[in-house]
């Protein structure tokens, strides 16, 4: 059986939530698309640097996992007062979750599809193109569970929402599907957090759709800390109306192969998008980030800042694209991708792309690949700091520039500590975290 047939069979045999005509049709069409597209190969320009062969080789399948409250305890951000939804191997775990009654509407997608599918009809599968890649099609074909967040008009979420996707390993195959709908003038913060219990192998194929209505403000965090044997493929697709603001913070630390597509469409004038990201690649890890910002209408602003630290035999890929449509005059866009190559066997492939169809724009992009600055090293060494510690300090400073931009302090501090823990001889750096 080919990998495509295997996954198609997985989706066919999976239990389904919600039995409504439009939903069934969406899934059927997506399954047909998946069978037509198959899994991407490196002959596909968008997957040029990322071979997903290892995913095809393993027989990933749905697994029921038993997870206790104690198991997830280490993954909660210290000092973060948040609503919590826990998903185990892709299925919503009601018992582990904790949702306050006073906030915006938060529910599992499976529950919404079963009782009230109409409320998601105009969003689900409409924002993210199921045909964008074989993986998007596969996720849509097997659409069953995930988080649904809906902030009504002028509603401001009292707390951030922490979505914790726990995998038990065991070659589990999970396909989270999240939908965030921010109504006019509303504000929400959502943290998508992917972790593994133990060191097992598993495959996550996630899609998150975000609709940001006029004047709304969405802060989206994605922290990927899966095991080094995990395979992680994820797409985030947002659509922003007039004066809508979206900030996305991607922090990628785990996974054997981790691929993130981060896309937003600016369809209302005055919309603003910020996409920041940090990837730490080590061992034999492979991390791939593809971003696409579509400036469809005039007067929109986009800012993008991705940084990567590559060590061991790791490989990083960054492909940032800014697409300015013919009518999108007064577009203001900046993109930056900086990479630190620390090892002889590490590799980085970066491509900051611009596609521009009108003359009244301000677009700049830059990319650098380099090492730690010798002058900086000298400065620290001449003050008696040993080379390993000096190196750790400089790497921390480089990476921390992205983490500094995270507005949620508890998340930022927790990630800074994680970063320090990964660096050798960096204990004393703890005092820098505040």
């Amino acid at each position, binding site marked *: 059986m080919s990998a495509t047939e295997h996954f198609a069979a997985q989706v066919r045999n999976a239990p389904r939530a919600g039995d409504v005509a439009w939903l069934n049709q969406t899934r059927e069409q997506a399954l047909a698309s998946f069978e037509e597209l198959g899994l991407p190969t490196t002959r596909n*320009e968008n997957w040029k640097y990322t071979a997903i062969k290892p995913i095809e080789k393993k027989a990933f399948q749905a697994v029921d996992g038993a997870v206790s409250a104690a198991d997830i305890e280490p993954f909660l951000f210290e000092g973060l007062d948040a609503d919590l939804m826990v998903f185990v191997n892709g299925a919503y775990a009601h018992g582990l979750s904790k949702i306050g009654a006073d906030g915006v509407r938060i529910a599992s997608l499976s529950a919404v599809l079963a009782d009230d599918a109409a409320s998601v009809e105009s969003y689900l599968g409409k924002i993210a193109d199921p045909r964008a890649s074989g993986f998007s099609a596969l996720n849509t074909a097997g659409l069953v569970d995930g988080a649904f967040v809906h902030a009504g008009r002028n509603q401001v979420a009292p707390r951030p929402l922490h979505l914790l996707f726990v995998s038990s390993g065991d070659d589990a195959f999970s396909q989270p599907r999240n939908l965030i709908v921010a109504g006019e003038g509303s504000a929400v913060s959502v943290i998508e957090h992917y972790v593994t219990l133990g060191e097992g192998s598993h495959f996550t194929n996630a899609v998150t759709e975000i609709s940001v209505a006029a004047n709304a403000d969405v802060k989206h965090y994605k922290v990927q800390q899966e095991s080094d044997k995990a395979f992680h493929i994820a797409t985030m697709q947002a659509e922003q109306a007039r004066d809508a603001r979206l900030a996305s913070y991607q922090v990628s630390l785990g996974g054997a192969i981790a691929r993130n597509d981060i896309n937003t469409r600016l369809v209302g004038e005055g919309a603003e998008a910020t996409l920041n990201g940090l990837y730490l690649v080590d061992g034999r890890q492979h991390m791939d980030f593809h971003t696409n910002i579509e400036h469809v209408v005039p007067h929109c602003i986009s800012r993008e800042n991705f940084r990567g630290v590559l060590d061991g035999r790791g490989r990083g890929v960054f492909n940032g694209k800014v697409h300015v449509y*013919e009518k999108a*005059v007064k577009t203001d866009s900046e993109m930056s991708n900086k*990479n630190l*190559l*620390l*090892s*002889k*066997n*590490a*590799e*980085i*492939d*970066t*491509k*900051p*792309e*611009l*596609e*521009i*169809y*009108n*003359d*009244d*724009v*301000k*677009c*700049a*992009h*830059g*990319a*650098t*690949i*380099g*090492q730690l600055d010798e002058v900086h090293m000298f400065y620290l060494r001449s003050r008696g700091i040993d080379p390993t510690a000096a190196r750790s300090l400089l790497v921390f400073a480089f990476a921390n520039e992205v983490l500094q931009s995270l507005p949620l302090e508890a998340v930022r501090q927790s990630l800074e500590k994680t970063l320090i823990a990964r660096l050798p001889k960096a204990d004393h750096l703890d005092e820098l975290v505040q």
Partner: protein
Amino acid sequence: MSSTAQELDHLIGKEYKEGFVTDIEAETFDPGLDEDVIRRLSAIKQEPEWLLEWRLEAFRHWQTMVGPDWAKLDVPPIDYQALSYYSAPKSKKDGPKSLDEVDPKLLETYEKLGIPLEERAALAGVAVDAVFDSVSVATTFKDKLNEAGVIFCSFSEAVREHPELVRQYLGTVVPQGDNFFAALNSAVFSDGSFIYIPKGTRCPMELSTYFRINAANTGQFERTLIVADEGSYVSYLEGCTAPRRDENQLHAAVVELVALDNAQIKYSTVQNWYPGDENGKGGIYNFVTKRAECRGVNSKVSWTQVETGSAITWKYPSCVLKGDNSVGEFYSVALSTLKQQADTGTKMIHIGKNTSSTIISKGISAMRGSNAYRGLVKVTKGADNARNYTQCDSLLMGDRCAAHTFPYMEVANPTAQVEHEATTSKISDDQLFYCTSRGISEEDAVSMIVNGFCKEVIKELPMEFAVEAQKLLGVSLEGSVG
């Protein structure tokens, strides 16, 4: 705002001045391409057996290939059987021995193009090889070059006179099956220039080839091979024009440069093929493979190109930096107006140690032109201390043009320093106002700003051609440029 846009369009709207046809008797093959055509072509050129075999090998490989479709170009399908693969002005059997024997009509053509072979050569001290359709019609200054030991002749002549050199280097930089158009060229290439600079020689003058497409329904497939032996230096320039026709014509050239130890090659192009009209009718398809190999230590290759013509340009002059301490440079101005499309850039492949490369690319899009920079900087594992600096700027004029940037950077060595910067801007109202308020006409102001934008590249051209290139940009913008 829209009035400014219209004025700009008017300013940019250009008249192609080299669009005439020379009425000359020519021997032309019937359209079509098969092994017989290649055999006939090879026979006419009195080529040795190995070269014919080489062509046939390329042809067989080409038949298994499909044209590239990854570029940001809209290329209508090309019927390769509808083209004629050889056209030559009828002349005396043995070809002209000196300029006096060259058909006066041909000389007149070059006169009209502003390239009076004799005078210009004498005045500027530039040796010129003129290629008309499929054959080289004249090469000037042969004696003086011979004295220095420099071989500068048409490719056909080189095959006859210096077969060992040709055989040693042909296809070593761009192999027969490299890509679709290179394979086609390898099968049917007609003529071009061959240059060999011996050890320790500094070529006494600028070398230049002038390419002219004249016959209808023919494709031009020239092949240029430049070998700079140890410690030598050469500066080479090519220029190109074609008549104005409503049909599209194909130009698929291959250029191979080899720089050995301590050698330097400077290769400049002023490309002004017929670009078609404002509705995209007619014009040349310029699908060219250019690659240089810095084989020796301390070798250096510098590409400079000013691309103003062609309906479609698909061209990536590249440097393979094999030798330690070798240097690659790429300076480019690409102007697309009317309905021109250009997808151009460079590849810098760092293999040796301490190699460095610089890429400066300036793209100008106006009217309905589309301009893409596509570049690759690759630092392989063993390329310690590689250094690259890339800057690609786009200037847009008008709200229907397009500019794209696709810079690929692949780095597998931690000692590499790779930087890429790109900006996109337009001629701002402030800049125009500043100039016009000082009594400079809008037309001159636009020209000034465009020339300022391109200055970093133009200054890399040999002086005579810098003037020509500036004029070309000026003509395109219909302003007088100083």
